[in-house]
């Protein structure tokens, strides 16, 4: 097991390297002079020269990259020329709300989606299965930004049960309960689509596993259906579901961009959208890099969980 963790950690290094290269290259994709793009149209030649030098844009690409990585490792993500503060500060303030939103949505999606998937598989072709399958179809076809608006319209405006946004300061006002009230609608919106995907994949994994010879063996041993489904089938299906949950983490983190925009949630997603609007390239770069790293770590975690569940992985 220890060897496996080491091996997985060693595999993360090249992935992180690749991620950093891609994020770094994004700035070089910008047509024309990146410094001018960063500073906007009103920049003076002097500030442009200043930024060019600061970012090392006048040096060869590999050197630029090394300087950039070196700065990153010292916690220096550059300065936002729009917000007039270090990128790292802005990201620091917005990372937690995004992780809270995405995490809540993912837990919600798993808690609802996985059992529904099992139910649909065990009752294949029965009414329950058909209803779940229909719900899944609607779920995966729904644009989350539209669903968010409908929820605002219904629960926020019509029924006025829940706040519809205005969560500007995470730790400013009402405490945990207030945060929770603000969290309900966006998390539900985000969880709806992720949950639908999870139902579908859980159902598929269960159907596949239920067809296996060892399920027949379990029945031949005289075990109860409950035990056959839970201990023999579901345990094996989980091995396939865990990486899917990891993958869903990526979709939830991405989907958070829409949901944060609709509900004005003070997270990285909304920050990115406005940063793109203001051409605040360094802020975009930093935000994407941090979220991507978080995602890589989540996948590392699901990999390890999978290895704990499946002894065959440790062996190979």
């Amino acid at each position, binding site marked *: 097991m220890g*060897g496996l963790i*080491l*091996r997985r950690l*060693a595999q993360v290094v090249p992935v992180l390297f690749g991620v950093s290269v891609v994020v770094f290259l994004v700035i070089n994709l910008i047509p024309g002079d990146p410094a001018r793009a960063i500073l906007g149209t009103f920049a003076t030649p002097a500030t442009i020269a200043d930024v060019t030098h600061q970012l090392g844009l006048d040096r060869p690409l590999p050197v630029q990259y090394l300087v950039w990585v070196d700065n990153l490792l010292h916690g220096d993500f550059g300065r936002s020329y729009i917000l007039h503060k270090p990128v790292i500060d802005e990201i620091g303030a917005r990372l937690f709300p995004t992780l809270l939103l995405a995490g809540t949505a993912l837990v919600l999606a798993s808690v609802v989606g996985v059992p529904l998937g099992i139910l649909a598989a065990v009752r294949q072709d029965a009414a329950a299965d058909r209803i779940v399958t229909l719900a899944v179809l609607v779920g995966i076809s729904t644009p989350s930004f539209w669903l968010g608006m409908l929820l605002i319209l219904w629960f926020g405006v019509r029924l006025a049960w829940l706040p519809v946004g205005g969560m500007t300061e995470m730790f400013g006002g009402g405490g945990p309960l207030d945060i929770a009230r603000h969290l309900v609608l966006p998390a539900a919106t985000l969880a709806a689509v992720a949950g639908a995907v999870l139902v579908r994949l859980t159902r598929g994994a269960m159907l596949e596993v239920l067809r296996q010879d060892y399920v027949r063996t379990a029945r031949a041993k005289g075990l109860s259906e409950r035990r056959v489904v839970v201990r023999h089938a579901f345990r094996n299906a989980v091995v396939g579901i865990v990486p899917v949950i990891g993958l869903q983490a990526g979709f939830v983190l991405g989907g958070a961009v829409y949901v944060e925009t609709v509900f004005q949630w003070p997270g990285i997603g909304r920050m990115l959208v406005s940063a793109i609007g203001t051409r605040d390239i360094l802020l975009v770069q930093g935000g994407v890099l941090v979220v991507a790293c978080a995602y890589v770590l989540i996948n590392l975690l699901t990999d390890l969980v999978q290895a704990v569940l499946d002894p065959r992985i440790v062996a190979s």
Partner: protein
Amino acid sequence: MSDIVLRAEDLVREFRRPRRLLRPRPPGLRAVDGVSLAVERGRTLGIVGESGCGKSTLARMVVGLIAPTGGALTIDGRSIPELARADRRALCRRVQMVFQDPSGSLNPRKTVRDILTAPLRALRGLDGAAARARVAELMDLVSLRPEFADRHPHEFSGGQAQRIGIARALAAEPEVLVLDEPVSALDVSVQAQVLQLLGDLQARLGLTYLFISHDLAVVEAIAHDVVVMQRGKVVEAAPAERIFADPRHDYTKLLLGSVPRAAVP
């Protein structure tokens, strides 16, 4: 002076094992470990062994699908690995293969005609009417009805599919046919049909067979000479009559003693 078509001398195939983190690479796995054998023209050499003994790796080296990592392997005195590299088609005209899984060795998306025409065109330069005529001949050779030519593999039973596999191998007009467990996926009644067909073809076309199987009874029924392999090495080689009547190596004896027998005195 006997006429040796196929010869292996001290043949080795090593597979590299994956390197593990912070540890030296483990020694390679020798699937075939110093095998020497010779096959006379027009005869059948049976290769017997259990799973993992290296017999399939040996078969794939003989047809040039895998390159040996050591030793010499020649057909008509020419090096097989070299031919495989420099002039694959020349090699394919000399030696062909029939695979174990009859349906897996036929592309499910092609008709029998497509499957048989491919080697005719690429290896024998036949096209159009000539190819059509030759396909009909080949189908007849393996006792398949000519109207089957326009069907897809999934419409055939295992035995019929294996006949198609044999016809495809014969399309190249090879001297040597490598048969890699050609009947083990078949039911006994069908297995007998295919064995009989293989016997007839050898008599009619003067083919040389390298017949690989885990089933001693089948090998005894078809082979002139037998090689017993264990863990990549040849443990015993002898004419079939001798090896089955008087096995000398302990492993050969164990194999023979393990076969459940239906014959009653």
